[in-house]
C-alpha cells in the first residue's frame, strides 16, 4: 500500500474518532450531519444528505442545492462547511451565519453518481412546492424516478395545493410510483397506481411495472396487462423511431454525398479527396469556435451560422484551386483523376495533421443543437433534427441554383455538350472551376454539420468517402434527385436492418444489396436513358 494512502486512511480514522467523541458534546444531529460533508467520504456525504434533507431545517435547501452545483465548500482541517452563493457571499452551513471568507484549504464537496441521485431525490421533495412551475415539474419527475417512501407526505401535500395540470399529472405519477413500491399500501391504492402508470405508457412506467417485485395477485394481474399494453404501443413506436433514425442517417449520407453528386455526378470527376473537403469544413468550424471561445464567448450559439459560409468559401476556394492546378489537365480521363485526387487526399490529411495535430478537436454543440425532445414515445435529438432540415435546405438551394441562376444554366450546358457550350460563348473552363468549387464548397458545408455528430480529426473524410460514392452510384450518376432518394433509401434500409442483424451485418447486407442492385440497374436508381448516355 502506498505510503500516502495509508497516511490518509490513518488521518481519516483519527478524524472519525474525533467526530465521534469530541463533537457530540456541543452539537445536534443537524450540525453533526453537516460536519460529515467535510469528511470527503461518499458514504458519509450520502448519510449527511439524508439527514439534512429530512431535518426540516430551513438551511436544508440551500445546502443541498449548493451541493448539487458544487458550491458547498468543506474545510477538512476545521470540519467547517460553507455554502457559497452565486453572489460570492458565504454562510456557515451549520449555523447559517454569514462568514467573511471561506478558508483556502476548503474545497468543494465531491459527488459521485449515487450521491447525485440522492441529491436529486432530496431536492425533489424539498422543491415540490417551489413557486416556479418548471422547478415543481422537475421535482415531481425526480421524485418519480427515486420513488422513495419518505417523499409520499410531501407529494400528497403538494398535490393538494397544485393547480397546474401537467405538474399535477407528474405528481400523480410520482405518487403512483411511490405507492407501487410501498409495502403497506392497500390493494386499491396499488391498482390505481398501476392504472396511472399504464396511462403514462412509456419506458419508465414499464420499468417500474416490471421491477415492482411481489404484489397481491390482483395487482400482478393488472400490472401484467398494463405491461403488455405498454409494450405493444412501444413496439409501434419503435417502428416510427427506426424510420426517424433512418431519415436521420439518410440525411447525413445525403449531406456527405451532395457535393460528390456535383463533382462526380455532374462533372464526372471521381474526386477521392471529397472526404477531405468535408474534413476542411469541419476544421473551419473548429477554428471559428476557437476564435469565438477566446474572443467573443457570447457569440457561441451563432458559431455554426458563421461557420457555414466560411466553410463554403474555404472548401470552395480550395476546390477551385485543385481544379485549376490538377483536375483540368485530366478531363476525359476519369480514372486518372481518381488516382491524382487520392494522392491529394493523402496530402490534405497529412497537412491537417501537421497543422492541427493528429488528435480529435473539440467542436461544441450550440445550445439550440443540444438535447432532445420527446415526440410521443420517441426521442428526437435536436442536432439530428437540425441536420435533417439543414440537408434538405442545402438540397433545395442547390436545385434552385442549378435551375434558375445563370451559373446553373451554364453548368448544365457545359456538362451536356461542352463544345456546343463553348461555341456559344460560355467560358467553359471558368464554369468547370466554379462547378468543382461549388461541389467542394457544399462538401465543406457538410463538414460543418457533421462536426456536430462525429469526430473532428484528420481521418474524418475517410469514413464518408465510400458511403458517399455508394449513395451517388446507387441513386444514379448525374441525377440529384437520385442522390436524394438513394441516401434516404440506404439510411432507412440500414436502420431497419440494424436491430435485426446488428450494426456490422446490417452494413454488409446493405453493401451486398447495392452490388446486386447495380446488376439489375447498371446505371443506378434514376438512370438517364437513351442514346445520349452512350455517346
Amino acid at each position, binding site marked *: 500500500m502506498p505510503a500516502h494512502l495509508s497516511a490518509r486512511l490513518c488521518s481519516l480514522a483519527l478524524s472519525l474518532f474525533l467526530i465521534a467523541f469530541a463533537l457530540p458534546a456541543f452539537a445536534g444531529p443537524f450540525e453533526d450531519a453537516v460536519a460529515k460533508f467535510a469528511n470527503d467520504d461518499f458514504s458519509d456525504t450520502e448519510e449527511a444528505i439524508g439527514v439534512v434533507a429530512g431535518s426540516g431545517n430551513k438551511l436544508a435547501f440551500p445546502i443541498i442545492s449548493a451541493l448539487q452545483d458544487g458550491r458547498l465548500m468543506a474545510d477538512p482541517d476545521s470540519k467547517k462547511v460553507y455554502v457559497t452563493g452565486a453572489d460570492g457571499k458565504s454562510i456557515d452551513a451549520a449555523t447559517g451565519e454569514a462568514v467573511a471568507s471561506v478558508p483556502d484549504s476548503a474545497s468543494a464537496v465531491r459527488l459521485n453518481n449515487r450521491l447525485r441521485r440522492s441529491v436529486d431525490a432530496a431536492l425533489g421533495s424539498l422543491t415540490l412546492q417551489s413557486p416556479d412551475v418548471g422547478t415543481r415539474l422537475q421535482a415531481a419527475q425526480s421524485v418519480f424516478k427515486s420513488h422513495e417512501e419518505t417523499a409520499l407526505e410531501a407529494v400528497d401535500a403538494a398535490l393538494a395545493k397544485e393547480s397546474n395540470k401537467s405538474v399535477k399529472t407528474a405528481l400523480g405519477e410520482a405518487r403512483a410510483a411511490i405507492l407501487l413500491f410501498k409495502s403497506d399500501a392497500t390493494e386499491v391504492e396499488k391498482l390505481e397506481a398501476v392504472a396511472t402508470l399504464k396511462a403514462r405508457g412509456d419506458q419508465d412506467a414499464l420499468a417500474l411495472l416490471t421491477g415492482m417485485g411481489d404484489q397481491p395477485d390482483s395487482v400482478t394481474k393488472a400490472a401484467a396487462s398494463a405491461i403488455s399494453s405498454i409494450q405493444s404501443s412501444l413496439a409501434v413506436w419503435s417502428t416510427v423511431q427506426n424510420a426517424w433514425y433512418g431519415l436521420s442517417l439518410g440525411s447525413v449520407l445525403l449531406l456527405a454525398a451532395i457535393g460528390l453528386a456535383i463533382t462526380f455526378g455532374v462533372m464526372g470527376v471521381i474526386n477521392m479527396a471529397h472526404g477531405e473537403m468535408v474534413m476542411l469544413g469541419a476544421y473551419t468550424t473548429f477554428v471559428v469556435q476557437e476564435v469565438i471561445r477566446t474572443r467573443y464567448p457570447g457569440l457561441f450559439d451563432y458559431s455554426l451560422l458563421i461557420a457555414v459560409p466560411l466553410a463554403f468559401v474555404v472548401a470552395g476556394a480550395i476546390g477551385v484551386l485543385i481544379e485549376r492546378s490538377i483536375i483540368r489537365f485530366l478531363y476525359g480521363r476519369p480514372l486518372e483523376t481518381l488516382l491524382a485526387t487520392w494522392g491529394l487526399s493523402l496530402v490534405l490529411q497529412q497537412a491537417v495533421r501537421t497543422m492541427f495535430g493528429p488528435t480529435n478537436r473539440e467542436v461544441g454543440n450550440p445550445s439550440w443543437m443540444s438535447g432532445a425532445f420527446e415526440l410521443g414515445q420517441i426521442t428526437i435529438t435536436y442536432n439530428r433534427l437540425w441536420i435533417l432540415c439543414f440537408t434538405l435546405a442545402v438540397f433545395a438551394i442547390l436545385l434552385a441554383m442549378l435551375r434558375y441562376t445563370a451559373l446553373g444554366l451554364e453548368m448544365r450546358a457545359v456538362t451536356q455538350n461542352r463544345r456546343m457550350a463553348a461555341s456559344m460563348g460560355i467560358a467553359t473552363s471558368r464554369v468547370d472551376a466554379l462547378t468543382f468549387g461549388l461541389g467542394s464548397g457544399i462538401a465543406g458545408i457538410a463538414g460543418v454539420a457533421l462536426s456536430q455528430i462525429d469526430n473532428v480529426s484528420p481521418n474524418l473524410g475517410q469514413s464518408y468517402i465510400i458511403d458517399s460514392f455508394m449513395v451517388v452510384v446507387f441513386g444514379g450518376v448525374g441525377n440529384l434527385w437520385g442522390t436524394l432518394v438513394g441516401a434516404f433509401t440506404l439510411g432507412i434500409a440500414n436502420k431497419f436492418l440494424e436491430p435485426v442483424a446488428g450494426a456490422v451485418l446490417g452494413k454488409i447486407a446493405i453493401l451486398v444489396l447495392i452490388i446486386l442492385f447495380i446488376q439489375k440497374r447498371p446505371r443506378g436508381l434514376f438512370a438517364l436513358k*437513351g*442514346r445520349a448516355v452512350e455517346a
Partner: protein
Amino acid sequence: MNVMDTRATSAMLYLDGVHVSFDGFHAINNLSLTLEPGEMRAIIGPNGAGKTTMMDIITGKTKPDEGTVLFDGVTDLTRLDETRIAELGIGRKFQKPTVFESQTVQDNLLLALNVDHSVKATLFWRGSKAESERIDKVLETIRLTEARNRLAGSLSHGQKQWLEIGMLLAQDPKLLLVDEPVAGMTDVETHLTAELLKEINKTHTVMVVEHDMTFVRELGVKVTCLHEGTVLAEGTIDQVSSNERVIEVYLGR
C-alpha cells in the same frame, strides 16, 4: 405496303409496328420496313428521324417496346443480344467511324474475321494461311495494303471509314448495316465508296443510311425516307425527292 406483307417470310429483314421511346420521347413510331435478300437500300431522313435508333434495334443494342423484328424470315432479333445477332450475320458500320485505334490495320481486320470467337479459340489461336490471304484480299479491296502495319488511330478520317467497311467485309455478314459511310469524305473518296458498296452488294444484302444525296443517287437503289421514327416515303430517289411531304420535312415548314 400490303404487297410486301405477303412476302414477309422470304425477306432478309422484316420490321413491323416497331415502337421505342426514351423517357417519353418516341424515337421510333410504328416503323415497318422490309429488306429483300440481295437488295441494297438507302435510308434517308433528317436528324432525329430515328435512323440510328433503327439500326440499334436491328443489332440488339436497343430493345423495342413493341413490334416485330425478323431476320431471314425466322429469327426474332428482339430477343437476342448484340453478340448473337452479329454471329447470325448482321454486320454494322457506325456513324462515327469506330475502329480499334490502338491496334494495327491488319489486327483490326483479323479481329473482324468471322472465325470462332470463343475465348478458348482466341487464346490458342495461331494464324492460318487462309486467314492471312483473306486479310490481304480485304486490304486490297479497301486500298489499305500499304498501311497494314500502321495503327488504326493514325489513319485519316476517310481511311478509317474504309477500314470499318473492310472490317465488315472480313466479317462477311449476310446483312450489312452501313451508317453514314461517306461523312467527311472528299468527292473522290465518296465516289470510290459508292463503287465499293455496289461491289459488296453483289454478294451481300446492304442497308445504307446517308445524308449525302449525290451519294445516294450514285448508288441508284431504292430509297426509304424516315421521319419522326416512321416511314415517310419509299421508292426511287427521284420519286422520294419529289414527294411533297419529304420536301416539307427537309426544308422545314
